[in-house]
């Protein structure tokens, strides 16, 4: 017998477990109204006809809904080889599909644990999860921003506009900004990021660096305009220990359109 829920959606037949799970996922992220009703039904109904995976996924989505649901690895706007020879296809593929993907996966795990802790009122666990949230959440945020602020060489340019004006105002000229940002970024000890950020209070742009995956905005209040990843995984295959060359060259593949837009949004 087929049973459907209040939205005419078929809960109890699942042609393939993964397909059903996919439907629930799309449904829950598409509309929170539909989600609660269907998910609670799926999670709570005790029926031998109901696949275990369905109940488990439903419960997971119910519990992960408060913190925003599952995060996913964003697609790149270009092919893995688009930034060659500055950054190799191999680096891009490993960096995106392995490193960034791991942050996303682990962020979701941490968020699920957070929801359980919050539901249980377990303050100690909530606190102890902060490290994992900062690291994986920061990793996901930073890399998402990173992919978007890169573009094939010569596909964008820093045109005369508010960004150029502000760069000249704050640094003198583009070369000086590049020099300052490069120096700070190269000098990061161990793993971290270099950023050009917008200071909402002063209306100026600044160079900043962060350790590990510490996010710029959450940590400093600066709005990220563009970032340079200097974890060794970002450049080791292509540049080995010579971080300065990588940092210097990456300016050739910055997506100035994206940076311009971020400045406009930040203002």
């Amino acid at each position, binding site marked *: 017998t087929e049973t459907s829920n209040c939205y005419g959606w078929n809960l109890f037949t699942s042609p393939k477990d993964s397909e059903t799970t996919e439907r629930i996922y799309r449904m829950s992220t598409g509309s929170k109204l539909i989600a609660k009703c269907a998910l609670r039904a799926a999670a709570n109904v005790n029926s031998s006809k109901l696949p275990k995976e369905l109940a488990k996924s439903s419960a997971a989505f119910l519990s992960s809904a408060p913190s925003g649901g599952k995060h996913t690895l964003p697609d790149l706007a270009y092919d893995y080889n688009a930034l060659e020879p500055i950054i190799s296809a191999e680096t891009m593929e490993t960096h995106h599909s392995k490193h960034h993907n791991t942050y996303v996966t682990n962020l979701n795990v941490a968020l699920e644990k957070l929801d359980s802790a919050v539901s249980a009122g377990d303050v100690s666990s909530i606190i102890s999860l902060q490290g994992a949230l900062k690291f994986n959440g920061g990793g996901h945020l930073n890399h998402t921003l990173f992919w978007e602020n890169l573009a094939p060489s010569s596909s964008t340019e820093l045109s005369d506009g508010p960004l150029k004006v502000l760069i000249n105002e704050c640094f003198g000229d583009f070369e000086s900004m590049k020099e300052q940002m490069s120096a700070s970024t190269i000098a990061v*000890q161990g793993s971290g990021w270099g950023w050009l950020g917008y200071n909402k209070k002063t209306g100026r742009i600044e160079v900043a660096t962060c350790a590990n995956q510490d996010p710029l905005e959450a940590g400093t209040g600066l709005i990220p305009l563009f970032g340079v990843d200097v*974890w060794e995984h970002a450049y*080791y295959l292509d540049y080995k220990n010579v971080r300065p060359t990588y940092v210097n060259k990456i300016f050739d593949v910055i997506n100035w359109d994206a940076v311009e837009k971020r400045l406009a949004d930040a203002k």
Partner: protein
Amino acid sequence: MISMLSTVTIFLALRFQECFAKVDLPALPYDYKALEPIISSKTLEYHHDKHHAKYVATTNSMIAEESGLGDATLEEIMKQSYGSNIGLYNNAAQAWNHAFYWNCMKAKGGGKPTKQKKLMGLIKTSFGSFDVFVKEFSNAANTAFGSGWAWLVLDSESGKLLVTKTIGAENPMNVNSNWIPILTCDVWEHAYYLDYQNLRPTYTHNFLEKLVNWDFVADNLETASAKRGVGSEL
């Protein structure tokens, strides 16, 4: 007259030189190829000749400008600069850490320290079993967020071994003066990226299974125990 002056100048310069502490870049205890296929010769070449060499060179140029170090040893430099001179500490500690790390590995190493009875005994006493030690050490290595090191240290206060992890250049002996490192694994990405890319856990696993120089670790334990008067019961 001129030649006497230059002789005197050279003599003074040499004496001056001797007054400065100076760090050496030790040669690798083995050939670049020795640890293949676990760690490639290419990795060892870059890791030793570029990374380690740079830490040594930077340390030396920094201490040349620093008065009051006299002919301090590397460990003394680390102690003095910890918390007060980040730049010097980062380079000096990395010079120490890498020299230590090379000796922690050898071709056809790894596995269990069955021949090193005292060490094995203390591992069992401290962790319950060798497997638990492996689990803890692997976990430390795999969960060091960013660049760092996993360590097995002797706690001279308790007389027991423990596992710890540090970030960046940090050395456990500066974190806690009772801690004496006896084994380390470098988990900065440059240590394994060419060979393992993102698969740090595989590198860690292979390090323990196939590379650890247990003789060196046992020697370190002996020295550490003797130094601190620990281990009459060992």
